[in-house]
């Protein structure tokens, strides 16, 4: 669907993007991750042709992207604004028409989305009369009104309460099911784990990692295993002896614990289970994969900082 190849962009002497490449497949939710200043917004603006790249190319369905392709893209920027003096309806009509819809089409789609987000009663209200959450719903609707094939969302959850975050999440999942492609730039790693299929991680304008969410987590795993058991903690520790190391523990109550264990020497998960089965009653055991939050921190924290901390 979208091929970004060797994109480079500098602002005077500062390099904002350096040889960034990735591909987004049709019908997937693709995470665009990175710390502040990593170049995510610059990249998004480049895809939206708001700014022009110095190097590289962007292709949609194999063809070089043109101004006309913007009709197939929906964009919700991070710092989004509305014309405060306009009514909700007028605003949606204006942006819908800018995206190439006819007046009639805008009204039809507006009716659908206003119903779906339950803001029908607000359509004649001025934007300045809306609450922040309500205004954000309007912004989201304006981004998807023209049923874009590719939807680019920059921090779509910021400012939303948990109920509305869930609402947006569900919408995105439904859109994916309908074959839409979504690029999601967010710092909300929980949402990334929940809904993203793949992701690219940028840092200082460069691509640090790319792949399926599960792969990214897999790549950063540190050989930790978690065991949930009922029994005596001292017995548990004694059983491990020198072959394993307790990393941390969580007390669940009623002599129940969850302990994370690291392997020593050539010991395996099977070895661990065999040692423990004789001492405690194991309820569950699994390999610990890092959360996306941990992957993110691991990949973008400068190594010298980590060394200093050690």
């Amino acid at each position, binding site marked *: 669907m979208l091929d970004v190849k060797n994109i480079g962009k500098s602002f005077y002497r500062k390099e904002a993007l350096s040889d960034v490449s990735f591909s987004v497949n049709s019908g997937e939710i693709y995470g665009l991750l990175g710390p502040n200043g990593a170049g995510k917004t610059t990249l998004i603006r480049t895809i*939206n042709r708001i700014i022009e790249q110095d190097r590289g190319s962007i292709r949609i369905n194999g063809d070089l992207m043109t101004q006309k392709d913007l009709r197939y893209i929906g964009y919700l920027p991070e710092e989004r604004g509305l014309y405060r003096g306009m009514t909700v309806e007028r605003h949606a009509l204006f942006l819908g028409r800018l995206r190439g819809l006819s007046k009639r089409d805008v009204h039809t789609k507006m009716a659908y989305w206003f119903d779906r987000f339950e803001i029908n009663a607000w359509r004649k209200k001025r934007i300045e009369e809306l609450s922040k959450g309500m205004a954000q719903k309007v912004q989201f609707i304006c981004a998807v009104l023209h049923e874009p094939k590719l939807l680019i969302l920059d921090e779509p959850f910021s400012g939303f309460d948990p109920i509305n975050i869930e609402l947006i999440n569900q919408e995105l999942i439904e859109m994916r099911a309908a074959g839409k492609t979504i690029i999601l730039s967010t710092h909300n790693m929980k949402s990334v784990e929940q809904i993203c299929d793949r992701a690219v991680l940028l840092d200082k304008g460069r691509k640090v990692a790319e792949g399926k969410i599960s792969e990214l987590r897999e790549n950063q795993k540190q050989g930790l295993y978690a065991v949930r058991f009922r029994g005596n903690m001292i017995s548990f520790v004694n059983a491990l002896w020198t072959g394993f190391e307790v990393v941390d523990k969580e007390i669940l109550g009623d002599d129940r614990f969850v302990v994370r264990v690291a392997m020593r020497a050539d010991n395996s998960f099977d070895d661990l289970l065999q040692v423990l089965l004789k001492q405690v009653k194991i309820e569950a055991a699994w390999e610990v994969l890092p959360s996306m939050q941990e992957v993110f921190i691991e990949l973008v924290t400068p190594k010298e900082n980590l060394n200093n901390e050690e």
Partner: protein
Amino acid sequence: MRNSLLVAFRECRERLISRSFFLLSFIGPCIVLGMIYLAFSIGGQPKQHWKVLIADPANIMNSKIMAGEDKSISYSFADGYIEIEEFAEAKMFQEFDALLEVNEKVVSNKTGFVFYREKPSVRMRTQVQYHFERRLEEVMVKQFTDLPLKEFRKIKQPINVNFRDVYDPKDEASALNGWVGFFFGTLILTFIFLFGMTILRSVTREKSNRIVEVLLASVSPNQLMIGKITGIGITAFVQFIMWIVIIGLGLYFMRELLFPDMLDAANIKFHDLALDGVDQSYPERYFAAREYNQFVELIYNRVQFTNMTVFFFLFFIAGYLFYGSLFTSVGATMGSESDGQQFVLPIIALLLFSLYGGYYAMNYPESPLSEILHYLPFTAPVVVMVKLAQGYEPGHAHEIYVSLFLLLGSAFIMLAIAARLYKNGILQFGHRLRLKHIFKWLKSN
């Protein structure tokens, strides 16, 4: 194109439905009409005593002129030629306020000149003109026809009396017309400033509330800028037309209802006039009827409004594009509201200089500087209006098109510069604008 039109339509609609637009559309022309009404009302009021020396070397007037019972004016006759410089400087002429020059061919060329020391009141001008005209009519009737004077007056051609400053004997009528041009030019600048500031505010608002990024994902910066300038320009145009219609209607009703006597020849009661001799008296009511207000004549008779209106709109459009691009550039490059206020000062200075240029051209229409100001893009809208009102010399009418072409050309260059600044500056927020930013943005693609 479609997107530019959509942006233009939104800009236009937003302003047309605003209360301030309607207030300005009605209050503005009402203020102008009020000022015109005042000028009409007080135009003939002041009186002064005048001593006029009539230089009549051919003795055409036979040392006679009707002064009547009006004590505010007295005439003396001189037989020989009097040079203007001599009249201005010589001690013996200092007691006279004005010199009425009766040339030998006055009967055929129907033109006389009055050189005054201090600018006379409207009433005084009218009196002198009236006295001179009446006396010449008598002379002409005696010389050329058997018609009674009353009948002759119905068919005679008017006498053209030119009033000139003896210390600066330039064409007084042109200077007067020049004021109308200056008014038109000022009107252009006022609208340019008002709607230029509207562009600035609109760009700033879109920038500060970040809607611009949403828009730029659908339209190119150029389309957005052109749409904005066009939309606000259309609003200005609509308001302009409303002003012209309201002022036009106001002038019409003023003429018909408030000041019907001023221009209607039917109100002149010839039968009430004494027809001959130096001591003829005339009723005050005649004079009130006959007396024209110079300003009234200027407004209703002298100015070629059709011609002026056409060029007025052309220069307004070109001037608006020129200055509008400057306002757009400032709006797009600024990092905060206070930046905009600072950087708008040079534009205001340019507008004020333009205004001064118009005033200068009105007073010194033939000077080389006026010639330069006529072609400079930022002064052209006012200076051309002034020159247009004063009238171009035969064979020089092309100058107006040259000036218009130069202004349009400059406007397009400025638009190209503004487009580059808009593209590079519109997404920059929160910075402290420096000249180096502007140069950088101008250089980058």
